[in-house]
């Protein structure tokens, strides 16, 4: 099997900080899965995502995408970002344009698509994310849930084969979450690999088909939700057992 991503002993430390953000991270991401990425704040989830998109370069180790080592040449980065989209935790960090439609069009135009192709992609992404009625609206006049969906549409307009969502669910209400899960399910059905960083364990229990647990910049666990639920030593070591109280841990055979 060709993995979506393979990280081999990747290390990264931010300037001015003594602790490493990624400390020899080794993991293989299977393609076409709904992957929950768990870990406490500061465990390296966001840094891991930024490496996947080529926004950060490992200081040591190797990253392979689709079986090939990542190249950081401009043309290669453009190809990578066409195939790997990232939605950030706070949509306000992502929405820059004055209107929703224009913001969504930014990615496809950067990929070199014509105006007609871009318009079509904007239309499709807006429809998928349920923001067609917002296309003329200024981005600052949106609710939190609308901003999240628009931010997602801006990435999906680039039609990535891998979607990274960095704690997208953390600042939106449960109804908006349902909308997001509907969008994610549609993408999954189309074969998109989805990595969702989250603190919500019900996501692992009821949504994910694969789980990665990060701890202090390393992989503490990777496998299926059932494997994680049955592995009490990992649950104890990663302290997930302390916050697992509100999730039904029954594993269906």
């Amino acid at each position, binding site marked *: 099997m060709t993995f979506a991503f393979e990280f081999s002993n990747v290390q990264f430390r931010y300037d001015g900080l003594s602790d490493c953000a990624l400390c020899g991270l080794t993991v293989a991401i299977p393609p076409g899965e709904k992957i929950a990425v768990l870990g406490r704040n500061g465990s390296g989830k966001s840094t891991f995502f930024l490496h996947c998109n080529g*926004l950060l370069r490992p200081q040591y180790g190797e990253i392979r995408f689709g079986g090939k080592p990542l190249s950081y040449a401009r043309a290669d980065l453009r190809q990578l970002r066409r195939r790997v989209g990232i939605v950030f935790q706070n949509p*306000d960090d992502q929405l820059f344009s*004055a209107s929703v439609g224009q913001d969504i069009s*930014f990615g496809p135009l950067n990929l070199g698509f014509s105006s007609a192709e871009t318009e079509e992609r904007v239309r499709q992404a807006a429809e998928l994310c349920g923001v067609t009625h917002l296309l003329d609206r200024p981005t600052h006049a949106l609710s939190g849930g609308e901003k999240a969906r628009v931010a997602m549409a801006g990435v999906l307009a680039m039609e990535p084969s891998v979607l990274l969502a960095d704690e997208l669910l953390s600042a939106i209400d449960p109804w908006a979450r349902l909308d997001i899960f509907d969008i994610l399910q549609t993408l999954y059905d189309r074969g998109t690999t989805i990595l969702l960083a989250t603190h919500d364990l019900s996501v692992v229990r009821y949504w994910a088909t694969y789980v990665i647990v990060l701890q202090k910049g390393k992989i503490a666990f990777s496998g299926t939700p059932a494997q994680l639920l049955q592995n009490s030593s990992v649950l104890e070591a990663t302290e997930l057992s302390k916050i697992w109280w509100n999730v039904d841990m029954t594993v269906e055979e």
Partner: protein
Amino acid sequence: MLIDRFAYGNRLRHTDPALKTAVSLAVLVLCLVLDTPAASLFALGWMSLLAVAVARVPVRVFAGILLGESTFLALATVGIAVTVSVAPPSAETLWRGHIGALWVFGTANGLSVAAHTVSRAIGATAAMNFLALTTPLVDLVALMRRLHVPDALIDITATVYRATFLLLDNFNQMYTAQQCRLGYISARRSMQSAALLGGNLFIKTFQKGKRLQLALDARGFEGTLRVLPAQYRPNPVLAVWGIIGVTAMLGIRILL
């Protein structure tokens, strides 16, 4: 922001911004060039009518904004209409008085210059208000692109516009957080809190800028913020109204 809300919600929202800008600029330039108070006052009425009757901006909104600007203008022209001097006035004055050793007086010439200045400014301001209340900045940015304004200038304009709202959001959140913890309970605490807010606002905005840069890079940013141009409708009615207004201003100048 009030202006932004009406710019997006008025009846001329989808009219080509080039036409709205042309009408506004033509009236503005005529107010400045003709220097005829009657023509300027006509421009004030005409642009108000276009905004209220054609674009359907509420009267109280247009009048409220104009009133605020007029107050500022009136205060600024007091210096022209009123002369303060240590020497008694030599020319014929309309009125005179003194405060201590200072003579305060007004001349017919000073009043005339002040009236001309106010009328020119108020006519031009009404034209700009019409544009601001009927045209969102996003449309003006699109127009700048059509006019081949340099990309860097357009990107700065668009980013500053967006950053203004982010800055306001940050400010409101931090101010509320300070108020909740009695940050403005006394004059001394208010000054300290305001200083902290100012400093932290800068840091937070800088951090937000860095995160925005990452997000732009993730979507393939290579130096230019390229977005799709908006689609607009032709509006012959506004064009006709604009031509009538400009012709009338020129007619007033010729007749007076």
